[in-house]
């Protein structure tokens, strides 16, 4: 069954938190007979939804770590990645999007397109993911799917086309009318498993006819054949599906479905939509870079008999060892095969190969292009590419944002220290936005990530999954230092204290760089500094960048040009030139107008319109720069750029200012110079810490 790649769909389900993604996934697994009972997110039965496999996720009712699962629908193999809705876990969403070919975008019929939906939509655009939309929760009080369709069109710029209309709304929501077949569809049985087509109820007929015309008009833009069929009144269902599919694959059309996963209404037609409209793996262009040809971009074929290329996109700890999730882009893989890790060039043997079903698994003996599978016993990092050795290619690197927040972590005893080490090793392999290091001077372990909740979740996982008793410091902002202008240096390092002396002179200048964090230019002519000492000078400058002289944070965006110097035939050494570079940096740094940069977040606050003033005032008070305010019905979304340092604990005052009716999201926007008053404050604190020996 389903051996043809045309019958494979790799899809994600992504949306705003609480839009009902996990409930939808649970229903899909039930209807595709992968599970035989339905549990709710935060359900009273204490079991929790299938995709929320970590205890913490079940407890908080949010999906943190995307688990892959497999099911079959009408002869199609469907791999589903459930993705987190909170912006702090964006890397999970980004990773899921990287390996997906299409997505179901779940929107709440009451809340509509919320700020997080905009973020996720932007991410999907970045990875060119075609999608179908489901307007969920049509049974809820205040449900207005037509408003959501308008928002899809105007706020997200989608050519949203209704494929269905609801039969009733709120408590009267009882089914959907399929505008392709022009039939009413009802969902009967204990959990809506029996799909019952019927005639369109007369009160909905006119609306259905009008909306079908709109749908046909939109679909006909992608098919001359359909256009002709409309004129000659010979429209066939297959023709509509084909045209809508064409529009969807080109991302110029978004088919919209209606439903209530919780009430078991409208889920199966969405699965049909996945089948009809989302791409098979061979319909998506996948590029890799050829490491043997200066990283030239190559397109992969998705043919099972071509050389193997697959990507490790997620790692998980399981009782059986490390589980690596692989997406196979080209070729095939079977038990006993040898794989080569492109990054390390190490060879590994395929041992246990499994198809994942949330936290359960099914052993398989082979898999091929288009499949998403799990592999045990592979030592690798998330993002590694594997081949069968015939090619030396790497999947293009994923976009990984820099961490913007950090906190100190202290184990409470020796045993916890060991466990904490294991946990950190695991988490940093799993999540490239989560980082950890030991501060050389204070000896403290420092973890950094994308937001308060991001770090909070890892600390909790450390306690629960690894049994590490740890305490944490207050979250702190990851400041950066940089320079504002060019400054010259000419420094001689000279030491004669008995034994071999040390001598090295370096001259040149520091200047701001727009490219990356650090550039080193060697313009030394005539052998003023012997070539063998140049790398030592580079190393010396780089060592200074780790800890700036203003407040001890990393220095970025600096270009160093060395154009002159001097050496001594006996006393010059690598060490001497490292020291000379360090001295030169110190000499020039303060002349180069060093400034402190802070992470600035793009903050979006959605609230009932009467609180617009309060929201603006609260952001302004936090040094926020108000960018816009958009009114939509009774809601207003205020967008601002606010320094991260001012956003800690914002949820509490926002709640009290808006009677708990507002919500906010934020994501990293850019680094910006801190105001002078704050700069002085930070410098004073640094001096104070330095005095106490804790800087």
């Amino acid at each position: 069954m389903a051996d043809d790649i045309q019958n494979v769909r790799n899809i994600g389900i992504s949306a705003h938190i609480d839009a009902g993604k996990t409930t939808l996934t649970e229903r899909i697994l039930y209807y595709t007979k992968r599970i035989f009972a339905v549990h709710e997110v935060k359900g009273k039965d204490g079991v929790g939804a299938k995709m929320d496999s970590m205890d913490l996720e079940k407890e908080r009712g949010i999906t943190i770590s995307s688990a892959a699962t497999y099911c079959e629908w009408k002869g199609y193999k469907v791999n589903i990645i459930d993705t987190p809705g909170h912006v702090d876990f964006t890397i999970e969403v980004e990773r899921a999007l990287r390996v997906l070919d299409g997505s179901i975008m779940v929107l709440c019929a009451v809340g509509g397109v919320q700020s997080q939906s905009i973020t996720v939509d932007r991410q999907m655009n970045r990875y060119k993911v075609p999608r179908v939309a489901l307007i969920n929760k049509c049974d809820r009080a205040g449900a207005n799917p037509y408003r959501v369709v308008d928002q899809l069109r105007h706020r997200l710029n989608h050519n949203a086309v209704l494929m269905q209309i609801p039969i009733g709304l709120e408590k009267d929501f009882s089914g959907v009318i399929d505008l392709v077949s022009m039939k009413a569809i009802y969902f009967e049985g204990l959990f809506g498993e029996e799909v019952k087509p019927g005639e369109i109820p007369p009160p909905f007929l006119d609306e259905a006819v009008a909306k079908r015309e709109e749908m046909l008009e939109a679909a006909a833009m992608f098919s001359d054949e359909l256009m002709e069929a409309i004129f000659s009144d010979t429209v066939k269902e297959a023709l509509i599906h084909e045209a809508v599919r064409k529009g969807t694959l080109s991302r110029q059309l978004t088919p919209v479905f209606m439903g209530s996963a919780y009430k078991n209404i409208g889920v199966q037609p969405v699965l049909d939509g996945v089948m009809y409209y989302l791409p098979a793996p061979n319909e998506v262009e996948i590029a890799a870079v050829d490491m043997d040809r200066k990283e030239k971009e190559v397109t992969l074929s998705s043919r099972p008999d071509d050389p193997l290329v697959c990507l490790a996109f997620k790692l998980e700890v399981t009782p059986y060892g490390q589980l690596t999730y692989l997406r196979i882009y080209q070729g095939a893989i079977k038990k006993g095969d040898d794989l080569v890790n492109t990054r390390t060039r190490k060879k590994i043997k395929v041992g246990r190969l499994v198809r994942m079903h949330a936290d359960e698994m099914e052993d398989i003996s082979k898999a091929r292009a288009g499949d998403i599978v799990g592999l045990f016993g592979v030592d690798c990092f998330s993002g590694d590419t594997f081949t069968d050795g015939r090619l030396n290619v790497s999947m293009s690197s994923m976009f990984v944002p820099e961490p913007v927040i950090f906190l100190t972590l202290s184990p409470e005893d020796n045993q916890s220290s060991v466990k904490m080490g294991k946990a950190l090793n695991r988490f940093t392999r799993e999540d490239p936005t989560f980082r950890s290091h030991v501060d050389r001077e204070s000896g403290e372990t420092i973890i950094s990530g994308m937001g308060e909740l991001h770090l909070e979740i890892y600390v909790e996982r450390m306690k629960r999954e690894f049994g590490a008793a740890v305490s944490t410091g207050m979250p702190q902002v990851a400041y950066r230092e940089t320079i504002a202008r060019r400054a010259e240096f000419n420094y001689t390092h000279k030491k004669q204290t008995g034994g071999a002396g040390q001598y090295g002179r370096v001259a040149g200048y520091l200047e701001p760089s727009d490219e990356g964090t650090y550039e080193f230019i060697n313009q030394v002519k005539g052998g003023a500094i012997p070539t063998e000492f140049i790398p030592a000078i580079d190393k010396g400058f780089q060592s200074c960048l780790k800890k700036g002289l203003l407040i001890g944070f990393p220095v970025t965006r600096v270009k160093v040009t060395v154009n002159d110097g001097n050496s001594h035939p006996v006393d010059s050494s690598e060490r001497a030139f490292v020291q000379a570079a360090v001295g030169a940096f110190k000499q020039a740094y303060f002349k180069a107008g060093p400034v402190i940069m802070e992470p600035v977040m793009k903050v979006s606050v959605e609230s009932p319109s009467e609180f617009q003033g309060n929201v603006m005032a609260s952001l302004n008070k936090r040094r926020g720069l108000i960018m816009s305010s958009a009114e939509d019905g009774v809601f207003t979304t205020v967008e601002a750029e606010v320094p991260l340092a001012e956003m800690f604990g914002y949820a509490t005052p926002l709640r009290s200012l808006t009677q708990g009716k507002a919500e906010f999201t934020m994501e990293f926007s850019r680094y910006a110079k801190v105001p002078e008053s704050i700069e002085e404050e930070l410098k004073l604190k640094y001096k104070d810490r330095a005095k106490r020996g804790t800087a």
Partner: protein
Amino acid sequence: MKDFFKVSPLKILEGPAHKGLGKGNLGVLMAGAGLGKTSCLIDIALDRLFRGGKLVHVSLKDPPEKITSYYNVIFSDLVTVLGAENEHEVRDLIERNRIILAYLNESFDLARLRENLNNLANEIDFVPESLIVDGIDFAQAKPELFEGFKRIAEDLQAEAWFSALTHQPLAEADEGGTSVAWNGVDAFFSVIIRLYSTESGVFLKLVKHHDSEQISEAVLRLDPDNFLVIG
């Protein structure tokens, strides 16, 4: 961005007998469909911003992301054409002095706009010297709407610039370059500028200028890519 003023569409208001739109007044840029009203209106907005004033862009149609991206694209084009040594600072100036108020899915009404402007003034001390209003359907708009805008502009002591789709009768009526009868709302506008295209290019023409009966015959030729003056 000093060079911008030499090529700004608002150059049409320069001249010995002419003055700008003026505080408390309404001005309108009218053009046929697809001619580039929004782009030209954003050039007018940039003119106001580069002169150092605060500005509120009111959109009745597009969401803030789209408006922001219009500004970004148009500003990038300007930098390409005119060059800018201090591009980052100018971008920063635009962002600090512009706020977008969008009213989606027919959420707009004057009372709401007034309340939003009051919030800007009272809560974040942002009082605009210019309003840019895009997306009003002039064919449907009632005089009361512009009366309300006029009052807002007077209260704020701000200039308010609108864009309007030219309707056929209007296009015919203003051939002679005189003031036009326009649903009875032209009286609210102190300045009316018309953007039009012919086989030889895109042009800007002053149709109404305060109470002046003698309007300059000058027509400015615009670059169709960026709506900057080229002749």
